[in-house]
């Protein structure tokens, strides 16, 4: 029988176990215990986060599917829906970087095509430990992880033929023992044909299709919810080898089946595999499901019902088919050399029944199992570190002697330097939709058959969130939306991935709650609904938590795909216009970290009225063809953003003059202007003809605006009130920027 040690081994608390017994009205079988333990794990049940996530705005006129399904969906016109979501695969990627990242990509792609959408773009948001020490020497360990993770994402995404069109990569010591690998996928579906993960219609057959079931990740779902410690090495076989070829077949076959109306519901088997898919589909349909695990195709011999129900083997799908239409469905899968196997049927009694050669091994009410997980109101406490970390005495900092050198040094910082080494390993052009290439701003994919395009960006800044979790959430929303706006697209929907430490620690829980509030505020203020997301907790190694890291994925709509903007100055002789306030702050900045080795101060806050007006202005001006380029000021501040407008432009430099913002004795006014970070600032280039109208509109919308210079020459020069303060050759800037990241991975050219 079930003893206390077995209950403990399943990670269930005494209260949870009591609840389970109450639901069943008896003691569980071992299979039932296993089923409850995975369904009620943090990973599947969101028991610590659920209360908080309710605060997100999830409604809007375009929302077709909010949180609760496999992915969210928004209306993009022409009868089409954009379906998207982000997922973390942090722990598996640390244990085995290549396969962990690869199977993460596989998982999020399944979430998208499960909705009946053809996946057309991927983005990856990556965080690792420091890449270099203070002398610029590579960290062997970080290099190994980055190399494996990037190759894994490439290996899966390239093979299945979905372009990876953007992402981000950050390096902070706090991620050394716990890298973050978040992957975003977007697909397009007919708006009126979104598939659902629902089992309805008693008597309808339940089909299993895809890879055979092995003893993979039997404790995967519970592993993703447990901290790392020295003993984690024992968890290793939990990592799996991804099979992108199988997934490609599944993707094509499932989309083909969905063309027919023979399908009632469909769901992938992700975390908690067959358990999760059966009980969630039944719970959504208000039905039951009766399956016999002996019919499940198996890869290994002697698997128990417990193992079959909990297996997390990749590349498997569960389908409910309309009775009488089985041959049609089977035929499609046959065409793709896949065998759809009937493993059971939908029932009317609301029970998940699991049999093994007819013998009943589990019988659980689906609704209680899926939705009855405990919801915790975990205590929160203001963290002890915070007051001290927020204190920044700028006057104690030495001012760098050579600002041009500092400028180049920032361009070479791994966080800022070109990510070419990463995205060139990704096929970012397959499907011939990529009209905004990675590296130039948001990734932009056109929607064939319409004139439209979608711009996509994922952003977050763990440093900001550590220094001020609420502001960090707000800033992530603002930045992701602004990146999309800079491509000329109006933000229409968002997803988020919340990467945090152990929620049982009140200071971590406080960070979490604050960040959620910040994201909710930001999305509400900008009118961007959240249609889904993912929570990854327990990101700690030996008690050391990562920076709290909310990552936002924002989708924007461009009505005219021909109007895509990039960061690049397209020609000499254009006016350079700064939209927004010139100066930023040094709190939490890349400058402070890179030059002074400090992570301190408070990040400059977002004024959402200002931010909304700015984004509206840029999108609108771009629609009217007034802008030639647009780039927001992010890490590294104004100076870095300006240089990035010239880098890769084919040699179009710029010379700008900013008003002095600070008093004559304020040495830091200069640094704040050049390298200070703040939201709501965009550098655009315009023709003379466009300029007048742009200025007028900016004033109407209350956006600060200044014509600060012109493009041209082969240098980038910044003056303050007529005095040159920093000046670099484009070639030097390009060199610093191009090699900053790549030099750690590529042997120096012989």
């Amino acid at each position, binding site marked *: 029988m079930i003893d206390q040690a077995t209950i403990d081994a399943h990670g269930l608390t005494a209260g949870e176990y009591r609840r389970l017994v109450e639901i069943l009205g008896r003691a569980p079988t071992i299979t039932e215990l296993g089923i409850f333990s995975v369904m009620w794990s943090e990973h599947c049940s969101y028991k610590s986060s659920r209360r908080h996530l309710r605060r997100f705005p999830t409604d809007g006129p375009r929302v077709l599917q909010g949180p609760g399904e496999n992915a969210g969906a928004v209306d993009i016109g022409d009868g089409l829906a954009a379906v998207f979501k982000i997922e973390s695969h942090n722990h598996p990627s640390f*244990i*085995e970087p290549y*396969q962990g990242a690869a199977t993460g990509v596989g998982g999020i792609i399944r979430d998208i095509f499960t909705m009946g959408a053809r996946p057309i773009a991927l983005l990856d948001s990556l965080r690792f430990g420091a890449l270099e020490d203070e002398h610029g020497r590579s960290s062997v360990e970080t290099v190994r992880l980055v190399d494996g993770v990037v190759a894994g994402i490439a290996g899966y995404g390239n093979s299945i033929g979905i372009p990876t069109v953007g992402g981000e990569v950050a390096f902070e010591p706090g991620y050394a023992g716990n890298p973050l690998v978040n992957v975003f996928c977007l697909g397009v579906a007919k708006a009126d044909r979104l598939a659902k993960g629902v089992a309805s219609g008693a008597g309808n057959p339940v089909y299993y299709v895809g*890879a055979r079931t*092995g*003893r*993979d990740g039997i404790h995967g779902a519970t592993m993703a919810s447990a901290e790392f410690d020295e003993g984690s090495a024992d968890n*290793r*076989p939990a*990592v*799996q*080898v*991804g*099979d992108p*070829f*199988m997934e490609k077949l599944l993707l094509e076959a499932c989309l083909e089946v969905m063309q027919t109306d023979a399908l009632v519901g469909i769901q992938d088997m992700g975390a908690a595999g067959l358990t999760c898919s059966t009980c969630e589909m039944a719970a959504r349909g208000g039905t039951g499901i009766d399956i016999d695990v002996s019919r499940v195709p198996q*890869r*290994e011999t002697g698997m128990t019902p417990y193992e079959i129900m909990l297996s997390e*083997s990749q590349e498997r799908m569960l389908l409910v088919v309309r009775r009488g239409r089985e041959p049609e469905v089977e035929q499609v899968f046959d065409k793709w*050399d896949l065998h759809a196997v009937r493993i059971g049927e939908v029932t009317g009694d609301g029970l998940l029944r699991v049999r093994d050669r007819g013998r009943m091994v589990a019988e659980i009410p689906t609704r209680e199992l899926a939705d009855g997980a405990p919801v915790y109101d975990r205590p929160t406490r203001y963290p002890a570190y915070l007051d001290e970390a927020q204190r920044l005495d700028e006057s104690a900092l030495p001012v760098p002697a050579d600002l041009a050198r500092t400028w180049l040094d920032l361009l070479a910082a791994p966080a800022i330097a070109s990510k070419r080494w990463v995205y060139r390993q990704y096929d970012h052009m397959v499907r011939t939709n990529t009209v905004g290439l990675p590296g130039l701003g948001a990734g932009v994919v056109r929607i064939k058959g319409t004139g439209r395009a979608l711009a996509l960006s994922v952003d977050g800044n763990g440093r900001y969130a550590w220094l001020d979790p609420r502001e960090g959430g707000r800033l992530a929303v603002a930045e992701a939306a602004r990146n999309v706006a800079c491509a000329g697209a109006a933000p229409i929907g968002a997803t988020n991935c919340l990467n945090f430490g152990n929620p049982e620690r009140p200071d971590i829980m406080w960070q979490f709650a604050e960040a959620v509030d910040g994201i909710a505020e930001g999305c509400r203020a900008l009118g961007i609904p959240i249609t889904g997301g993912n929570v990854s907790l327990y990101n700690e190694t030996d008690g050391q938590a990562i920076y709290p890291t909310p990552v936002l994925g924002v989708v924007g709509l461009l009505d005219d795909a021909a109007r895509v903007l990039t960061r690049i100055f397209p020609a000499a002789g254009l006016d350079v216009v700064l939209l927004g306030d010139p100066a930023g702050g040094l709190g939490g900045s890349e400058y402070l970290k890179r030059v002074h080795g400090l992570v301190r101060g408070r990040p400059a806050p977002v004024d959402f009225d200002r931010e909304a007006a700015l984004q509206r202005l840029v999108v609108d001006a771009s629609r009217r063809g007034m802008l030639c380029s647009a780039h927001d000021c992010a890490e590294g501040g104004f100076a870095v953003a300006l240089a990035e407008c010239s880098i890769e432009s084919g040699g179009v430099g710029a010379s700008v003059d900013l008003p002095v913002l600070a008093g004559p004795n304020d040495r830091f006014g200069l640094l704040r202007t050049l390298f200070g970070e703040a939201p709501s600032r965009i550098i655009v280039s315009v023709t003379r003809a466009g300029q007048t109208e742009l200025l007028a509109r900016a004033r109407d919308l209350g956006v600060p605006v200044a014509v600060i210079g012109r493009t041209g020459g082969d240098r980038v020069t910044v003056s303050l009130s007529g005095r040159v303060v920093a000046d670099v050759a484009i070639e030097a800037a390009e060199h610093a920027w191009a090699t900053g990241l790549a030099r750690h991975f590529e042997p120096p050219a012989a």
Partner: protein
Amino acid sequence: MRTRVFVTLKPSVFDPQGRTIAAALGSLGYGSVRDVRQGKYFELDVDAETPAAARTLVSGIADRLLANPVIESYRVEVDDHGTEPS
């Protein structure tokens, strides 16, 4: 000295390549092939005094670099022909 390292996925780990090759062989009419597993094979030419020393050296290398202990296991073979004391 010539050494060989065989790296294979651990038996419990699914081998998609082997499986795909097996399926292809099936449709090519090789019905008598029951199972295929694919691994990696390395030949290392090393300087070592004795076969035992070569084995120790190469096992260390396999551990550190050639095999991924999370999902793979390895086996080392040392060619001791011609290295007998003559």
